[in-house]
């Protein structure tokens, strides 16, 4: 069971979580606190998207889960970035961005 909390929305596709996540890949262990939200990756930095992510993810009482992680930046094993499908309750977070996701 995932037990993470979003502490910051860095931009319209990246969030910071607490505690650090950890993942094994090719015999190495990678960790970090940044996650790219799968589905929002094609967007340029859109303030409305960042703002909405902030409103729905920070201090939410719904269960947050991060599925199908994929390492995308692993030059630094202690400060890597992973891309995940982010679920708020049982809904993928991308569900709350219909006007942005369908336009790119």
């Amino acid at each position, binding site marked *: 069971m995932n037990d993470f909390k979003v502490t910051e929305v860095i931009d319209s596709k990246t969030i910071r979580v607490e505690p650090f*996540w950890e993942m094994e890949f090719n015999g190495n262990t990678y960790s970090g606190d940044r996650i790219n939200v799968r589905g929002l990756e094609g967007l340029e930095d859109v303030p409305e998207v960042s703002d909405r992510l902030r409103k729905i993810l920070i201090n939410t009482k719904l269960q947050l889960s991060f599925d199908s992680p994929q390492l995308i930046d692993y030059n630094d094993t202690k400060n890597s970035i992973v891309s995940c499908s982010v679920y708020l*309750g049982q809904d993928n977070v991308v569900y709350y961005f219909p006007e942005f996701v369908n336009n790119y």
Partner: protein
Amino acid sequence: MKELVDLYAKLLIGTFTFIGPSFTLLISLFQDHFERVKKAHENRRETWMKTDSKDETILREIKKHKLELNRLDPKRQVKMVYGTLLLAIILTGFYYFQHTHFWVFNYGWIRITTICLSIALFIMCLIILSIVFGTIIDAKKAEKEAQKEALQKSKHTSLQILKKLQS
């Protein structure tokens, strides 16, 4: 015409006696799922409202979830079905009453309006019943899909919490 109205009245009574036990059984069978789906719609609606957006699509989503919540409320469903059916039965009774010597007004249009209103309410009741049965069928389908998804999700790797090293 009299035979048709008699047949219609028997159909009304038959429907009334059928839906009582069916409702009780179906709602108790799917109560858990209704609660889960209701919770999901409430969560979605609350999350949408947090966005404070005035966008048309989002306002429509909020309204859609409110309608879904109403559709999933068993008390509301029972009131709608029984309410329309009872009114249809009362109006049919009133139609029969108009054929007795106690009814002094001899206007054909009142009798026709009464029976037409009764039929309209009965059709409304049937539509509501079909929506309820549709909800139950959706509930069964969604339950199966949720079980399939849970099985698939457990196969994917999940992120792990980093264990803090004691220094």
